[in-house]
């Protein structure tokens, strides 16, 4: 395990190995983690933030709201050098910075601590407002939520307000693996569109589709990307 753990992190193909350092399961496939592709494309090609800029006022922010099952997130952060891959096998251990829900005070590169659902989107709204109030118009704020997490009413407070306010630098990424108990009749994107957001619904495993959706212009409006994946892999 030690020699495996010290392998130099690299590209997308490296992520299953990094995840296996946390799960102990060498056969871990990317499909088992619904957020993996979406997170990778975001960190690899879109977000303007890296290990050297984690405290820069004008960095892009990524807030993981769905803090449950953070292995893919930790793997991507390790692959991008925010912390050494050697930390991954400590996942969940007493002295590890890597809990089963992330804590921003412990994980290098984590913008928020999450776990209880429905907190990331309101925090992202406040973050976007704070950057705007300081004249920082370039940084993008991204928040990842799950389709079941979207049940929480706090999300709907944030979606309606951000749409009405035209918070252009706010971006939501919804990982939709059809895990919401009562579903979202007519699709999740419709909830955002109804409040004035720009929306795109894409195949959450298709890196080019994700990239195009992430980078679509949306002047004067917040933007949501609904990334659909196969149901209920976690």
């Amino acid at each position, binding site marked *: 395990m030690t020699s495996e753990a010290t392998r130099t992190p690299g590209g997308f193909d490296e992520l299953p190995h990094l995840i296996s350092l946390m799960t102990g399961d060498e056969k871990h496939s990317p499909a088992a983690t619904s957020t993996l592709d979406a997170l990778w494309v975001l960190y690899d090609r879109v977000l303007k933030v890296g290990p050297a800029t984690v405290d820069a*006022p004008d960095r892009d922010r990524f807030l993981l709201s769905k803090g449950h099952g953070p292995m893919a997130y930790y793997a991507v952060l390790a692959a991008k050098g925010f912390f050494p891959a050697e930390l991954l096998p400590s996942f969940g251990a007493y002295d590890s910075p890597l809990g089963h829900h992330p*804590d*921003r*005070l412990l994980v290098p590169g984590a*913008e*928020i*601590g999450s776990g*209880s659902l*429905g*907190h990331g*989107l*309101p*925090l*992202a*709204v*406040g*973050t*976007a*407002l*704070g*950057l*705007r*109030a*300081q004249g*920082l118009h370039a940084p993008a704020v991204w928040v990842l939520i799950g389709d079941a997490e979207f049940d929480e*009413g*706090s999300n709907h*407070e*944030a979606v*309606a*307000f951000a749409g009405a306010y035209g918070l252009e630098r706010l971006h939501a990424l919804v990982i939709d693996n059809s895990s919401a108990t009562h579903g979202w009749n007519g699709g999740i994107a419709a909830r955002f569109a109804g409040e004035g957001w720009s929306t795109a619904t894409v195949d959450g495993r298709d890196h080019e589709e994700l990239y195009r959706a992430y980078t679509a212009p949306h002047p004067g409006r917040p933007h949501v990307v609904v990334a659909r994946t196969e149901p209920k892999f976690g």
Partner: protein
Amino acid sequence: MTTQEFTMRDQFALTTAELLDQDPRTALVLADIGAAQFPESARAHPDRVVNVGIREQLLIGVAGGLALTGMRPIAHTFASFLIERPFEQVKLDLNHQGVGAVLVSAAGSYDWPAGGRTHMAPGDVALLDTLPDWHVHVPGHPAEADLLLRHAVAAGDSLQYVRLSVQQNREARPIVPGRFLTVREGARGVVLAVGPMLDAVLEATETLDVTVLYAATVRPFDAAGLRAAIGGRADVVLVEPYLAGTSEREAHRALEQLPHRVLGLGVPVAEHRHYGSLPEHLAAYGLDAAHLHARIAAFLW
């Protein structure tokens, strides 16, 4: 006790408007309640005066997000909707994220008796006691509210709660944030009056040989100040304008090296299904001067 025309909330509007003008780090977050008090600030600082509508989870979440970017958020609404309704946001979006904010409430316990239980939050300070690092101020006069608001906003990135009431004392006291103030000295025990309770306590103890301490800041609890006021008898009565007994544990901790007695007076935990006026509620809770006199005298004599 008097309910004067110029309230602590009026003072909050003046002080906050000035702080918004002076300090670009400050931002005011509202959830409709109080929004009409800030028309000029909203025009002058459209990016730093944010009304999220009737969305109190978002109120605290936005405050947390603003603080994450380095700003100093001030969030205001009634205590019921500032502390109780979004309590998990207070716990997670502020405390757990390691960020600070200034929460300013109105109508905490009994300010609007005709409004009934839905607009009463006598448990707000006790709830904040379940979280670490909160500073809790309970001014008894608009001038004290001004001083404590400025202190709270200037206090780095700390967590500050300022509890405003329409109930206020006739005069402001020369308070120092965080310290209890000795208002009267006596030999047969100490009565600690919190914020707007001071006038009633002074009237109630007029004929009693007791020390009266005044607290406009209750957290951190000025344990040294309480110990210094103890004379021959370590008998203490707490008179708080929120849930009875909220500071009993703090008083016991302050006096743990002494044999002592503590009586905690305040708003009873039982729901009081009556409307009417503020004086009627104070009397019903045993917090008017006549009832306080009887309860304090019985405990200390």
